[in-house]
């Protein structure tokens, strides 16, 4: 019986547990509640994935009001894939919180952290499951507001400024999205996404209101995704946030925003409108290519490794937008696949940095010199994640690049292939800078006796590193779902 209600439960569980954390107060209790909630959500997501793979799209009417009048939860391959990423990363990261928090001076108010964490998870998953455009905005705001709080928890004072900037930019983005939703409502008289898609052709492709809605949606989502050059909020936010938050947000928040863009551009507006009637592909491709290069180069010169990773995230988002800009099943598959794989590698790398920070209190590349001797497992995990980030074969990163290249070849765009390959080489530079420091330089004098990170930090990081390799070899699950999602997105248009 409960199986039928899984679509609701997956977001309700964290929603219930978030206030529970506040009521229970004790940090151990809150931790246990948060842990169980994330795991339960993940379990629900897995079950939902299986269900969707078996029977196709699932629709769930909230409050019993049938769509398109009531709020609908609608799950197809893309939705469950995103759900899987968010809840999966959430449940891997959660056990990490206990130790990671200790160091960052918010121990006594840890329950607040867990509450915000669960709300953020709830919001992100809500965005992923909902079939209602306005509801999507609400969930987006839930996740955004809680992530501002999470970022502001960083031990560095600059975390506050970073969170504030993120708040301003995030609010602008969300406002754009809600403006777009409003305009769409004006044009079509409905908020249900599937219904909007049905009614848009009636409104006409030259309708100025719809075009404005489209522009606002692309820019609003683009801001949330941190498409270059709308990315400036991201480096500070990821750098100064607590490590666990960096890991969680880097792996999930931008991914969910990419989902919003995919969903609206391909499903709601439709390929015909977005790419045939309007010249969207070229600007996106230009931005994507710029994103692949400029932030990568910036990353090469950063001294704080978290910042390196943050800029690298902006670059990796370029790949996702690139695949989207191909407007083909292959391109979308690559894009969705990279969404998943990038979550794995960035999650792993940020968790590793959390372990580093836990021991040496810094993520500066100079302070990490010679660390491989003292923290072999930690740095080995970094190497693993780094290889995936570069896209070395047998890692997840390779798979997504491979599909991206295939998609470009299918279009016959050689120069794009060259650009993809060259930009991967830049990744080699910034990853190997860290590896070189850790393995081939001598440790600073005050850091010669550093112990290996505790198992509670290492285990989540290694799980993700392992996942990087697993999904680099066994691709049937990730590629299978991504392909189905891509087909349904293209088919909808």
């Amino acid at each position: 019986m409960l199986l039928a209600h899984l679509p609701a439960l997956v977001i309700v569980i964290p929603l219930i547990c978030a206030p529970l954390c506040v009521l229970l107060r004790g940090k151990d209790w809150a931790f246990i509640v948060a842990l169980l909630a994330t795991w339960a959500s993940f379990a629900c997501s897995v079950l939902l994935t299986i269900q969707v793979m078996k029977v196709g799209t699932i629709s769930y009417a909230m409050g019993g009001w049938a769509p398109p009048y009531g709020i609908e939860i609608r799950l197809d391959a893309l939705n469950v894939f995103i759900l899987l990423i968010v809840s999966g990363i959430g449940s891997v990261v959660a056990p990490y919180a206990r130790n990671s928090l200790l160091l960052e001076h918010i121990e006594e108010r840890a329950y607040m952290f867990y509450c915000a964490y669960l709300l953020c998870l709830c919001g992100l998953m809500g965005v992923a499951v909902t079939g209602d455009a306005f509801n999507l905005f609400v969930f987006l705001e839930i996740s955004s507001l809680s992530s501002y709080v999470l970022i502001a928890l960083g031990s560095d004072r600059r975390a506050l400024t970073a969170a504030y900037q993120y708040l301003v930019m995030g609010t602008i983005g969300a406002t754009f999205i809600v403006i777009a939703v409003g305009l769409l409502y004006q044009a079509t008289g409905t908020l249900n996404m599937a219904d909007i898609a049905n009614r848009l052709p009636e409104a006409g492709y030259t309708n100025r209101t719809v075009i404005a809605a489209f522009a606002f949606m692309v820019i609003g989502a683009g801001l949330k995704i941190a498409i270059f050059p709308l990315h400036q909020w991201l480096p500070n936010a990821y750098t100064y946030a607590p490590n666990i938050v960096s890991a969680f947000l880097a792996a999930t928040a931008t991914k969910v925003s990419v989902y919003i863009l995919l969903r609206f551009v391909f499903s709601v507006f439709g390929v015909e409108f977005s790419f045939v009637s309007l010249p969207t592909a070229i600007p996106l491709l230009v931005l994507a290519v710029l994103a692949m290069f400029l932030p990568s180069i910036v990353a090469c010169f950063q001294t704080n490794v978290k910042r390196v990773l943050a800029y690298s995230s902006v670059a990796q988002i370029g790949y996702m937008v690139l695949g989207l800009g191909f407007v083909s099943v292959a391109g979308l598959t690559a894009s969705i696949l990279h969404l998943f794989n990038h979550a794995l590698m960035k999650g792993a790398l940020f968790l590793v940095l959390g372990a580093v920070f836990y021991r040496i209190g810094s993520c500066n590349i100079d302070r990490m010199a010679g660390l491989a001797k003292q923290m072999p497992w930690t740095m080995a995990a970094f190497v693993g994640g780094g290889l995936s980030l570069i896209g070395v074969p047998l890692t997840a990163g390779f798979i997504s690049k491979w599909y991206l290249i295939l998609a470009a070849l299918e279009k016959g765009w050689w120069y794009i292939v060259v650009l993809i390959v060259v930009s991967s080489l830049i990744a080699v530079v910034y990853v190997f800078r860290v590896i070189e420091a850790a393995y081939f330089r001598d440790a600073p004098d005050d850091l010669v006796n550093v112990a290996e990170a505790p198992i509670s930090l290492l285990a989540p990081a290694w799980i993700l590193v392992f996942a990087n390799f697993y999904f680099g070899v066994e691709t049937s699950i990730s590629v299978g779902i991504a392909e189905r999602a891509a087909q349904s997105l293209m088919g909808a248009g």
Partner: protein
Amino acid sequence: MKEYLVLRVITKLLLPFILLFGLYVQFHGDFGPGGGFQAGVIFAAGFVLYSLVYGVAAAQKVLPTGILRAGLAGGVLIYALVGVANLILGANYLEYTPLADTMKEGQHLGIFLVELGVGLTVASVMMTVYFTFATWRED
């Protein structure tokens, strides 16, 4: 504001009516204009008025942080749990029908409870925000 006797007296006189009006808006929400959100704000406004006239310390004695926090979390919890109750009773999430014998009464009760949660949370949040600003000092 100790010297403004008129204000103090009038405040004391008004306060029950404000709170009562808040409760009216709250419980009448499912029939007429109103509901948890508005009621929560009105309710909180009463306490804000009280603290403006009698001082923040006095207001905090009435509404300690602990209670506010409990209300803040509890309201959300009520909302979410009502939804779950429906689930357990065999309907969709937030589909209130099975809460009572007839559909009409079920919907009635469900909305009532959910609005209660909303009101509780909104009032608590308003007060928390107010107290945060009122007690904030430049370090």
